[in-house]
């Protein structure tokens, strides 16, 4: 009779040997809506190993959609993985700033985690907890591009947690620009070749030529340009995109919006005035009602095939290339147009450039942070690290309405975008445009200082007055400059200068 006990020892050894030789089977996290978990510091697996049962996290974010939607999604996932209770408060954009600021100013620990517009760092910085080194060293963070690391940094310290990357660039219809027949007709009619606009003057000229024509043959009129021109609806970003190449001289350091030394506003300098004049002139190529277009209208107009060109964030580009879009793969990206003449404030003259001066504008973008008052800082940072982990970031990028755009080097991968069904030119032009912006030495960033909303609201009002014909470009910007000087006075020049130095550092590539 064979004794079973004799087999137990060898069988156990064999089982252990087999187990050791077989690679561990990765846990399946596809029930969370991701394709697969990706390795990284804050992967699903790493987060799953944490236990925050019985603890809670309060998060404030934008209303659904845009960043509110991924916040809700990742909060739910984080809660399921760690056992934490994550309470998410969704607030409309118009209320978001004050809903964060009032508790800060009144020393209330209302929220542990905050999602907000990255340019508010100038106001919020003194209330934010610096990102601990272990998260700075995390796999996801080390791949964040230099620009967006800079956007998250204040006085040399990272205080915002990067989870989005925004910038303005040009979008245009390739079925028109690459059409030989159209090119020939454009040449015959205008005497110049049809090329992707190199300057804003070119842009206006091409937009005017194609305005009010049915160039896509669908029986409906098409228009030249869709732009965000509605006051108080991010129009300030559109204006800065247009003015930047005329006002941001690559050889002049020390401030774009202000002269850092004197803190005198530069907003009414000839470069900005030229940009505004061209913005006003461009209105004639807008679709009917285009000077009341907010961001949603701009996305809809270009993404829906109504207009030939547009410039703003990625949303219109993504919408134009969605599976159900009738202009899918008929669009390409390019750098924002530049300027042949640039105002040199050091010499007080216009300098001529044989190759147009470009001034890529890294504007806006969602960001996140942890409040200094939070009693759950570690869990809060773990949540943000999980939110932005490799699998979530890739997933979020693919969903246009989430408002998450490339901010890591790995996102600037042509193959990834081709994998979304984008054809070569659509994917390559997109990636090369975004990558070149990262390399640029003449970038413009938002005015990230205390009271940024006051400065931008004043600018938007002045620009809107000029756009509506209530004032000339010069008069409107003189009015803005006067108001900026008053705001500066109220904030205090030194306080403003100290904050603005952070922006100048980024723009002068010293950061």
């Amino acid at each position, binding site marked *: 009779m064979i004794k079973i006990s004799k087999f137990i020892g060898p069988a156990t050894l064999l089982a252990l040997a087999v187990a050791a030789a077989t690679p561990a089977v990765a846990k399946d996290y596809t029930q969370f809506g991701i394709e697969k978990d990706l390795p990284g510091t804050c992967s699903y697996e790493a987060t799953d190993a944490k236990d925050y049962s019985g603890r809670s996290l309060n998060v404030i974010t934008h209303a659904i959609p845009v960043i509110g939607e991924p916040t809700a999604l990742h909060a739910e996932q984080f809660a399921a993985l760690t056992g934490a209770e994550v309470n998410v408060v969704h607030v409309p954009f*118009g*209320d978001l*700033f*004050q809903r964060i*600021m009032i508790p*800060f*100013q*009144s020393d209330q620990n209302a929220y542990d985690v905050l999602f907000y517009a990255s340019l508010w760092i100038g*106001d919020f910085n003194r209330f934010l907890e610096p990102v601990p080194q272990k998260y700075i060293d995390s796999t996801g963070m080390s791949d964040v591009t230099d620009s967006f690391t800079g956007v998250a940094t204040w006085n040399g310290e990272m205080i915002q947690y990067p989870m989005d990357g925004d910038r303005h660039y040009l979008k245009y219809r390739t079925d028109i620009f690459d059409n030989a027949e159209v090119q020939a007709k454009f040449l015959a009619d205008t005497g110049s070749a049809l090329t992707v606009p190199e300057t804003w003057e070119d842009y206006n000229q091409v937009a005017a030529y194609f305005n009010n024509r049915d160039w896509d043959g669908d029986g409906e009129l098409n*228009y030249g340009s869709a732009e965000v021109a*509605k*006051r*108080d*609806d991010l129009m300030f970003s559109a204006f800065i995109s247009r003015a930047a190449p005329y006002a941001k001289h690559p050889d002049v350091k020390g401030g774009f919006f202000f002269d850092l030394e004197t803190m005198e506003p530069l907003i009414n300098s000839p470069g900005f005035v030229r940009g505004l004049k061209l913005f006003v002139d461009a209105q004639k190529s807008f*679709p*009917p*009602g*285009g*000077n*009341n277009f*907010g961001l949603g*209208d701009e996305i*809809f*107009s270009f993404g829906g095939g*109504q207009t030939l060109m547009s410039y703003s964030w990625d949303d219109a580009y993504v919408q134009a290339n969605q599976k159900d879009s009738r202009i899918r793969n008929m669009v390409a990206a390019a750098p924002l147009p530049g300027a042949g003449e640039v105002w040199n404030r050091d010499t007080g003259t216009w300098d001529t450039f044989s190759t147009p001066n470009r001034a890529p504008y890294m504007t806006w973008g969602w960001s996140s942070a942890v409040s200094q008052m939070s009693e759950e800082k570690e869990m809060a940072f773990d949540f943000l690290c999980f939110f932005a982990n490799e699998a979530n970031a890739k997933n979020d990028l693919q969903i246009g309405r989430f408002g998450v755009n490339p901010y890591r080097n790995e996102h600037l991968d042509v193959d990834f975008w081709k994998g979304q069904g984008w054809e070569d030119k659509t994917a390559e032009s997109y990636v090369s445009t975004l990558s070149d912006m990262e390399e640029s030495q003449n970038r413009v960033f938002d005015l990230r200082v*205390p*009271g940024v*909303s*006051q400065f931008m*609201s004043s600018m938007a*009002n002045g620009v*809107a*007055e000029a*756009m*509506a*014909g*209530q004032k000339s470009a010069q008069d409107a910007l003189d009015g803005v400059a006067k108001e900026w000087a008053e705001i500066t006075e*109220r*904030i*205090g020049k030194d*306080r403003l200068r100290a904050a603005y130095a952070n922006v100048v550092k980024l723009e002068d590539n010293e950061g």
Partner: protein
Amino acid sequence: MLSSKHFFLLPALLTLVAIILFPLLFTVRVSFSSWDVFQSGLDFIGGRNYVRVFEDDRFWQSLQRLSLLSIMSVSLQYTLGFALALAVWKQVRGGRLLRVLFLIPMMTTPVVMSVIWRTVFHESLGPVNDILSAFGVGPVPWLSSATGAFISVLIVEVWQWTPFMFLLLLAGLVSLPKEPYLAAAIDGAGTWRTFWQVTFPLMAPITIGALIIRLIEASKIMDTVYVLTSGGPGTATETSSYYIYIRGLRDFQIGYSAALSLVYLVIMIISLTIIAKLLLRTLVGKDE
């Protein structure tokens, strides 16, 4: 001397203090501070915010615009509301259904309706210009020209609030005594004469009440402007309440916006009191 019965007043008194007096007094206190995005807390800067209000051209221009908009919209609402109330006052077929239909705009949420109207007025994609183009008209710059935007805001306001006027005036008409009408009929007065010499004078107290209530509401117009035009193009539709919203909630100039609000409140109280007195004198013939 206080007795136990006075304690029954306490809940009402406390409620009054909590919801009216405290916020008002707090706003007064805030208006004397420099509370701003970079300066938290209630410091004391004297009347500096008030001096700034009187130098703020944009605020005064927005107030003029608001006055024009309020007077025009309330006048139109009154005229239309009265006409509709008269139409369904007498027994007409389907009168009950019409009454309900007329009230629908008032029951909708202003922000939601403004979004819908914004789509309706969309100059290239909206239905209004589409319909007009079938008659060879347009495109009309509903929201992109100063006049168009002002008229669009006016249309939405009139559409939304005429039912309220209709409701008040219809209630008034229903409560009118029958005897003056019998007397007028015996005297051989026609419809037109009966209206001007019987209905209109009898409705004067209700008219005054309705106009004042609507003027108070109309002077607070904010959501329609916010959604429809954001105050633009330029500053063509920027009203006082929208301007105060920008300064207070967008710019986070809490102290200054408190001063703006209080100046605005005082102006409203004075002007509405004057309007009420004038209406009384004109419509009722006495100053009560």
